[in-house]
């Protein structure tokens, strides 16, 4: 792997950036994930890492578009990991355990008509991550942190 240092030495990150996502905007949905995927590819990460990261980002992005007012993805690549933080301002998740269950969804009719709302997104995010953390505050927002080991 080629290593280009473009951030502070102390944090030891190879790449760090934030990507902003607007709630409700389905016509741009997927743009941020597509960008992140090509950034990770350009860094020279292995294909399976790029693929996992793309799935995690896409499902996170769609959840912001579907449920939150606005949010962002903080991407940090270190020599050993890809870290993906997802922060949004929105209604939050009242029962996280329930939301994590496959098949549970509160997606409305409009969202379901587009093929979202299978209740699989969070489960997929978790299963493609090596470390998965979720927290949420009702009426404030939701926070996800995923780490994918690259070595």
């Amino acid at each position: 792997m080629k290593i280009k240092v473009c951030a502070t030495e102390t944090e030891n990150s190879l790449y760090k950036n934030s990507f902003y996502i607007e709630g409700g905007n389905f016509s741009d949905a997927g743009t941020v994930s597509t960008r992140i995927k090509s950034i990770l590819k350009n860094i020279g990460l292995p294909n399976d890492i790029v693929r996992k990261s793309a799935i995690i980002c896409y499902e996170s992005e769609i959840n912001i578009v579907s449920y939150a007012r606005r949010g962002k993805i903080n991407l940090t690549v270190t020599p050993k990991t890809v870290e993906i933080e997802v922060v949004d301002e929105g209604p939050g998740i009242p029962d996280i355990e329930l939301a994590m269950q496959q098949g549970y969804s509160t997606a409305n009719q409009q969202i379901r008509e587009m093929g979202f709302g299978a209740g699989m997104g969070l489960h997929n995010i978790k299963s493609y991550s090596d470390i998965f953390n979720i927290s949420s505050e009702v009426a404030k927002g939701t926070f996800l942190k995923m780490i994918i080991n690259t070595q």
Partner: protein
Amino acid sequence: MDIETIVKKLNLKVRSASDRLKNNVTGGYTGDLLSDVMANSHEGDIWITRQVHQNIVAIATLKEHAGIILVNSCEPATDTLEKAVKENVPIMVSNLPAFELTGKIYNLLAEKK
């Protein structure tokens, strides 16, 4: 097998990226639930669906699908088509329902092996 062979054998109508019909098809996935397709389809798959809205283009791009075939003569929405042209994603239309189309493509790919 390339997309062009499948287009000819199954009489598909090509709606976008007709210059990409040499894309190699290594498998296929049938589904209308986007997070299922996101999680379980593979690079090089031909994706068979009846979803016509623009989010299918982002998924096919992210998953590096060979192309998308819409079933039951469903046509892509206008903005879907615009995106597919921009992203160079081949979208085809079949008059068959998903079950029949999937079976036919499955057999074509199996014959080849």
